[in-house]
């Protein structure tokens, strides 16, 4: 007799899990209940910005409504899980529906972090995570007007590119001295700022926001900084990172990580053997990861455990990434910040072509440990595959490969 797997959340990682289970469970041992909070089935969140650039939102859907047509999968959209009762092995939704489970996978994702500045709730202020967020931004955008994006990480650059596509004049505010401080060093960050600046996206680094002020109509009108500057903006996007959605943990007595997220072991299992957590809501290795690739690997390991496939532990995240942000190629891999003891950093900047490459190497310069690329990421595949190995030729030759 089929057992019931309840999946709380239906984002990209939950979708991956559902796909794996359908493919890996020919014996139909599992009946799936998928409870998604958003009114949409899973969609490609990574490519969100493309719908501000003219792409139809439906193109982003990962599977359309196909899972709904499978008797094995019951999909409930617009349904939020509000309570987890481990003793009875059931979850309760906001509508009061109760779903009993034999196994539960928490894939509740993350919510945007909005810094506690006065005025954050004003009309014209948005976060940047869901299709609904983007629909709101599209409706509120006024071509030609200045806009402000708070946060100069991956998401902030994405959001600024989206606003630019809507004809606005976005300006990014970042607290660190340069954009993408998590991935880039000072020089790489400066180059990135210059490159996106040339594409109509202004950047102010080393600043923090004090308050947002409303205009006569009650809608946001300006952003005030701690140095006293006021920046005009008819639209503001908060892109200051995300926080795991782990609020079910407290009442259910599940542990969370220091930086939030359901605490799980290397198989993504919580302390309750019937409950797993995957994706942005999971603290695997003690901390949440916030990228889709590690989330997919978590989904794979859980699917394998449920279907009796070959189980491989989630061995920590490879945070390597190659992206195109606001039209600029950026990549980071391995130990980008040279945290390995004794590591040496070697960087080459081509001032004419406007590209920058940094390699982090072992102390003798022979073994590649990581690196970052800005402006040109053609060398990324080769470099990433060499992490932890001795360089086959000169570092310069590897970097100049195009």
């Amino acid at each position, binding site marked *: 007799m089929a057992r019931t797997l309840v999946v709380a959340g239906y984002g990209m990682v939950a979708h991956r899990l559902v796909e794996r289970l359908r493919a890996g469970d020919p014996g139909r041992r599992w009946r799936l209940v998928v409870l998604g909070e958003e009114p949409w089935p899973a969609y490609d969140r990574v490519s969100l910005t493309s719908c501000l650039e003219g792409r139809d939102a439906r193109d982003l859907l990962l599977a359309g409504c196909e899972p709904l047509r499978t008797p094995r999968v019951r999909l409930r959209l617009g349904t939020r899980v509000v309570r987890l009762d481990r003793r009875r092995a059931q979850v309760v939704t906001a509508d009061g529906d109760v779903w009993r489970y034999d196994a539960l996978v928490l894939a509740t994702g993350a919510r945007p972090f909005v810094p506690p500045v006065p005025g954050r709730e004003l009309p014209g202020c948005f976060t940047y995570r869901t299709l609904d967020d983007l629909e709101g931004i599209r409706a509120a955008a006024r071509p030609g007007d200045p806009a402000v994006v708070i946060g100069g990480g991956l998401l902030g650059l994405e959001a600024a590119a989206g606003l630019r596509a809507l004809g606005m004049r976005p300006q990014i505010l970042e607290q660190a001295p340069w954009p993408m401080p998590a991935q880039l060093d000072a*020089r790489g960050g400066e180059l990135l700022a210059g490159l996106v600046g040339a594409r109509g996206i202004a950047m102010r680094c080393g600043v923090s926001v004090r308050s947002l002020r409303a205009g006569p109509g009650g809608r946001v009108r300006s952003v005030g900084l701690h140095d006293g500057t006021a920046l005009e903006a008819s639209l503001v996007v908060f892109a200051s990172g995300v926080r795991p959605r782990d609020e079910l943990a407290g009442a259910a007595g599940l542990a969370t990580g220091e930086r939030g997220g359901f605490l799980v072991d290397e198989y993504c299992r919580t302390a309750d053997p019937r409950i797993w957590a995957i994706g942005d809501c999971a603290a695997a290795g003690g901390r949440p990861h916030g990228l889709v690739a590690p989330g997919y690997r978590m989904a794979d390991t859980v699917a394998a455990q449920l279907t009796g496939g070959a189980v491989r532990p989630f061995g920590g995240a490879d945070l390597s990434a190659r992206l195109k942000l606001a039209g600029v190629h950026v990549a980071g891999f391995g130990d980008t910040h*040279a945290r390995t*003891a*004794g*590591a*040496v*950093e*070697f*960087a*080459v*900047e*081509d*001032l*004419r072509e406007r590209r920058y490459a940094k390699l982090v*190497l072992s*102390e*003798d*310069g022979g073994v590649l440990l990581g690196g970052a690329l800005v402006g040109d990421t053609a060398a990324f595949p080769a470099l990433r595959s060499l992490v932890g190995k001795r*360089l086959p*030729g*000169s*570092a*310069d*030759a590897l970097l*100049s490969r195009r």
Partner: protein
Amino acid sequence: MRAGIVIVGHGPAAHRLVQLLRRYGYRGRIGVLGAEHRPAYQRSLLGEVLGGRLRPPALTLPAVAEGADVRDGVTVTGVDRRRALVHTDDGGSHPYDTLVLATGARPHLPDLPGLRAPDGAPADGVTALRTLDDCLRIASAPGTGPTGAGKGGTQGPGVVVLGAGVLGVETAVDLRGAGHDVTLVHPAPHPMENRLDAPAGLLLTERLERLGVRMLPGRTPLAYRSGTLLLEDGGQVPARHLVVCAGAVPETSLARGCGLAVRTGVVVDAELRTSDPRVRAIGDCAEYQGTAGGSVLTAWEQADVLARLLTGGRARFRGARSAVRLRARGIDLAVLGGPDAPGEGHCADEVVTLMDRTRGRYARLVLREGRVHGAVLLGLPRAIAAVAQLYDQDLPAPSDRLSLLLGTPPADDRGGPAEDDVVCFCGGVTRAEVRRSWRDGARDLAAVAAATRATTGCGGCARDVLALGGGARSGAVEPVDGGPRRLAGLLGEGGA
């Protein structure tokens, strides 16, 4: 008989000029009027005297060729350009056909309370470092002797060096090396801030601290009062002796006095002519295209241009390629190119950096069309030698920049090193020459050095030279415990 050339000043620029004039065949009279009471000496080695490693006579430059009428301890009081005469304080007057001003520079003494005596000279306990006499005064001043107390013992207030430019850093290290208790006070956030970027500046600060120099960067002095240097932030630094290294001011009073054009220095054109074509100026007192002074290399180049011109040749001074090699034991630091070169010079097209925090090594190469346009190199003696040669001769940099900076063999070089590769960059000695000297019977580095001059510059090639010896001797000499391999192992290298 023609009046000939009169040179005012007897520093390295003047000395070089006399040498070159004779070398290029000048047969007329040369008069040299030096204000210091000693013959020309190598100013760049003053630190060796401060550090107690050399005694003053060792700095004396070789006497110039016969025929130069050198008078030291003579001060020029005025120039009568209309009559082409130089007047001196001993009542003499010297006619000239060509007058060369090589009056050098004097140390800048900042306008701080307590630094000057009523007559304007440095106050008691204050030295503005420039001359050999200054060094001797510091060395003999009370309270500046090496601290007698052992480690942990009570130490009296020591020497405070004010200003961490090239001279200040060198002076601090030299004094520390001679056993003094040394504090280096500098208003900017890191030493040599107009030549070094922030990463290099911070590593240099750490290096100086490890050498035992107490570093006070980012601290602005306010006044010097009864043996204490007061700082703007309220700090107080006990200083029995204050050594001021706050830069130099071109010595131009003579030029001003006779109505020549003077800005910061005596203004000269590409032929080193002042506003009076019969008067030339070279060295630290001269200003060319808005830049006054420079390193001793600038002075030498100007001396060379002028010597050629005065012997009927054609030459033009095009501005010196600036190169600073810090002369401080325990610190390998070189800055090539002007102060602006390491920045985003609009003509540069590539910037390569190497940062090794663990070992305090740093490099920044600024390139233009594959050639070195500027460089900062810290803790990388081999790279200093190699890059300096590339810079000096304007040669294309090898494509394997990482190996160039780390001083390792190029990774792409599958064919191995060639026999005509230069091993010792300072001396321009090739692999083949080093091998030959080993084959001809050299048994140690000193013998190779005597035969080839290899290792006598920066010394960074010593390992290579030894390794070559191992290879050369393996056939001729009885191998000891595996010969070359063991030798390389002792040197901490995997193999030659």
